[in-house]
Each structure stands twice: as C-alpha cells, then as structure tokens.
C-alpha cells in the first residue's frame, strides 16, 4: 500500500501540465511543435503546411520555403539534442494566423558565443533593401562552402521569401546558452 502511494506521488511530481501548455496558445496558433527536427518530422510538418495552408497557395509556398530553411538550421545548429537517439537538434515551431498575415516562428538553444554572429547577420539582412539583399545572396552563394551542402544563404532566402523584416528575440539562459527565437511574417 505504502509503495503504491509513493509511486503515485512520484508520478504526480513528474507529470507534465498539459492544461497549462495548451492554455499558452491563442486561437491564432494553427500548429505548434517542440522536439527533434529530424527528416521524418520535417517531412510530416512540411507536407501538412504545404497542403493545409493550401487554401492560399502563394502564402503556403512561401511558408513551406521558410519552414525548410529555418528547420534545417535547427536540425544542424541547435545546441540541444534529445535522448531518442537522433542526432538532429531540438527546437520549437509555431505557425499563427492573423487576418492580414501568417506568423511563422522557430526557436532553439544556441551557444552564447554564436549569438552575436547570428544577431549581426540578421541586423545586416534587415538593413538591406530587396535589391541589396539579392546581391548579398549572390555574393554569399559564390563563396566557397564552409560546410558540405551548406549554401550559407538560408536566412537571406527567408528574408527574401517573406518580404518582411526578420524579428528576433534572444533570451539569456545561463553563462553558456541562450534561447534564440525568430519570427517571420508572410502577408496573405
């Protein structure tokens, strides 16, 4: 009897507060996901985005393009991994719908030493007009690849596709890590 009660107690303290989690989301949130960004998960989410927001083909194509680039960044660069045996990074994703636009957000944990580089890159991207941005992309795409298969133009492409400034928010977690969130708007 005593052991049984103890087990219940342990279960209770570990239990995830799903109601609290669910209540965080406004009516505007259409999709939310937290977990590993591996190929299979991306495939399901990507297909869902492609065909569900399909009532607005132009926006869904843009959101799909943005999704792939930001999701691949998380898969490759998130400082957080999970214990299910996948090597890909862990992150969060939210798609919200408003009357005038869709807001696509992703977030992941990054090392503090990498944060400044990302912020500077995004500030540069936001300071450029469309023609300058296209030129910046061409210059970057012509540089030798630092890593195999990485064109290093994902964020530039995201800015071009969204045609809106990139909105970023960085939250310091401790002396090693920060949480990096980026929100991209796609007009309807």
């Amino acid at each position, binding site marked *: 009897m005593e052991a049984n009660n103890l087990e219940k107690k342990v279960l209770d303290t570990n239990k995830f507060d799903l109601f609290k989690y669910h209540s965080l989301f406004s009516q505007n949130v259409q999709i939310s996901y937290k977990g590993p960004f591996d*190929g299979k998960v991306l495939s399901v989410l990507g297909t869902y985005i492609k065909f569900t927001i399909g009532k607005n083909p132009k926006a869904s194509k843009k959101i799909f393009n943005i999704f792939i680039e930001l999701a691949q960044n998380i898969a490759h660069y998130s400082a957080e991994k999970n214990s299910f045996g996948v090597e890909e990074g862990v992150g969060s994703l939210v798609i919200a719908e408003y009357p005038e636009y869709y807001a696509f957000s992703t977030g992941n944990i990054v090392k503090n030493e990498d944060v400044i580089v990302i912020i500077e890159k995004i500030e540069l991207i936001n300071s450029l007009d469309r023609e300058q941005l296209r030129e910046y992309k061409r210059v970057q*795409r012509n540089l030798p690849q630092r890593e195999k298969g990485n064109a290093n133009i994902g964020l530039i492409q995201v800015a071009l596709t969204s045609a809106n400034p990139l909105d970023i928010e960085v939250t310091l977690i401790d002396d090693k890590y920060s949480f990096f969130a980026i929100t991209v708007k796609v007009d309807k």
Partner: protein
Amino acid sequence: MENLIVEGSHGVYFVPYVNFNAETGECELAGESYLEDTVLFYNPLLQWLENYINKKREAIKFNIKLTYFNTSSSRCLLDILNMLKDYEDEGGEVAVNWYYDEEDIDMQEEIEDYEIDTGLHIHLIPSTDLVKHDDSEQDEED
C-alpha cells in the same frame, strides 16, 4: 556514354527527376529538390556534364522545370550553370530553358539572379503544366 536518369520521388526528402541524354545532349531537371545529402546527389550530375563536355563536345540543351529547391540545392544548381557557362565560353553550344509558373515571382527573381551570377542567357518559359506535375506526384502518393 550512358544516359543519366533519376526517377523523382516525394518521400521524406524530395528527389528531382533527372534525364540527361548522351545521344541528343538534351538534359532535364524537374520536380522539387530537397535532399538529405545535396552534394552527394548533385555530384554525379556534374560529373556527367563534365564527361559530356570533355568527351562528346556537342550541343547541350538544358531544361529546368523545378518548382521548388532549397538553398542547399540552389548552390549546386549554380555549379551546374557555371559549368555550362564555361563550356559556352570555350565555344560549346549551350541553350538553357527554364520553365516556371508565371505567378511565382520569387522563382522569376531566382532565375534572374542566376543570369546575373553566371552571365549565361536563360530562356524564361512561362508554363502552367508545372503545378499539375506536382499534383500528380501527390496523387500517386495517396
């Protein structure tokens, strides 16, 4: 010299359809390109073109009908177009036709950027069949 054919597929990743014909010099790249290992996929395509250019030295008609490619693939497409431009500069006969959905403004800009980047003349061909091609792929999957 052998033809290079890859059946496109829509699974976890999107493999484009490839048909490079060594007899006619007509090469087609269609569908969508988002791959697990982009460089591994595109290296044989570049290798085939290099062989054709060095051994056959005949005309190349390169038809692109991609409706989507990620930035990693876009880097490999640049490598292909640069190779074609080098061949043209050496006296090779090269024609690049890029079929695109005329409502896809982002794709038009992308093609313009490739023209500026490579100095290659790209024939832009507006097309309505491309979207249908995507739909049929989806139907097959269902």
